[in-house]
């Protein structure tokens, strides 16, 4: 067999290169699509988009009223000055899973890194691909409005010591795939506990009462119990009732879910696949009832 003539070889190389770039391109497109889905499942839109009809998605601006002060969600479009332009996947992973900014400063836990710490590597990559694909918007977020004792982000290092245990999600092999997917969505990506779990004096989550409802939730709202308790929780709901609420916003009795949940349903759970909504329902139905 003779080697191809140099001209043919060049064509072949170009063809291989083209195929490779097509594949890379298709891969990137798939990653961006996956990232778009994860941004919904992660509830990013609800906080990082200002609360007005003409707001640019993810360009920041929503005010979050908490017992510890008012926080303004930053711009996470890829603008290099006011957003996250220039961030690597490693920067994004560190921010999401450790609560540390590229400049080494700590985020406040109003950004749910204690939940996001479980996010898998592949999901960080996909989130990065999607966020980089957005149109950069120049919009500076307002400074947080905090009491003096929280004005230094160094305080958060102490807070982390007591309230933050970093670590990736590890599936429970004694449970089925739906439960594990539900656990990943509820505990990590969807960060349901940030509102539905009560907090200790330091503002950390009280994990002995996971998802057992929070009498002092964001904006002063009373956040309901999601455990299987028959009276305070959702013990009387079927898995389908839960999935139906997450899709439509309607409670089993025909009433609508409360105001902050309606934003979560609109931005997040209504846009999930039916399988992911069922997975969340499977996980919640397997919770133990909250103790009185």
């Amino acid at each position, binding site marked *: 067999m003779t080697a191809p003539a140099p001209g043919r070889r060049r064509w072949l190389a170009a063809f291989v290169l083209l195929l490779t770039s097509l594949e890379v391109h298709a891969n990137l497109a798939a990653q961006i699509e996956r990232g778009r889905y994860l941004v919904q499942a992660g509830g990013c839109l609800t906080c990082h988009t200002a609360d007005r009809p003409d707001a640019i998605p993810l360009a920041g601006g929503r005010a979050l009223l908490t017992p510890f002060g008012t926080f303004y969600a930053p711009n996470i479009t890829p603008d290099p000055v006011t957003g996250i332009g220039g961030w690597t996947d490693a920067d994004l992973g560190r921010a999401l899973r450790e609560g540390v900014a590229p400049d080494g400063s700590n985020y406040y836990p109003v950004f749910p890194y204690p939940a996001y710490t479980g996010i898998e590597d592949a999901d960080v990559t996909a989130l990065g691909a999607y966020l980089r694909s957005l149109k950069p918007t120049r919009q500076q977020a307002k400074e947080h409005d905090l009491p003096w004792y929280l004005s230094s982000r160094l305080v958060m290092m102490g807070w982390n010591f007591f309230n933050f245990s970093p670590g990736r999600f590890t599936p429970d092999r004694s449970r089925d795939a739906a439960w594990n997917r539900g656990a990943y969505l509820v505990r990590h990506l969807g960060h349901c506990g940030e509102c539905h779990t009560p907090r200790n004096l330091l503002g950390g989550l009280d994990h002995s009462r996971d998802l057992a409802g929070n*009498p002092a939730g964001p904006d002063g709202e*009373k956040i309901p119990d999601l455990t299987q308790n028959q009276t305070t929780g959702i013990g009387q709901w079927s898995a389908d009732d839960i999935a139906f609420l997450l*899709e*439509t916003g*309607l409670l089993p009795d*025909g*009433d609508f879910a409360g*105001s902050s949940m*309606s934003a979560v349903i609109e931005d997040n759970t209504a846009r999930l696949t039916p399988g992911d909504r069922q997975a969340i329902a499977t996980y919640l139905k397997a919770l133990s009832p909250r103790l009185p």
Partner: protein
Amino acid sequence: MHRLVRTVLVAGLVAAFSAGATAATAPADAIKYRKAVMAAMAAHVSAFVLINFGKVDQQEYLKSHANALADLGAQGKVLFPAGTDTGDTNALPLIWKEQEQEQFNKLIAQLETSSARLRDAVAANDKPGAAAAFKSLSESCKGCHDRYQKKDD
């Protein structure tokens, strides 16, 4: 004899109807009535959503539920008479406070206008209009319930 029975019956019925029209309503009955109308609205919302999300194939009845919601939604303003703040109710006394009247009446008016818009949009087969009206209706429901309804712990 027969004529006598008939006369007595008719007189009784007339009395019952005129009593309904004139006698003051007992607060307990007004609360019962409020709950009945609220439950009817919730049932029509459920049915509407089941059709709208394609869970059941009853498209031809979407209009019935939208019409019912508009009729019931127009009743909001008569469901909270004075004196119905105590008893077997989850309505918070805040509703009857002077400083709340503007806010409360605004939500009650939103219930009426949004449900009327929903009826008209469904009748005209205007899907974006119906979606916007339904969203506004849902905001009036939960706006009121978030602020004025007692919640369990």
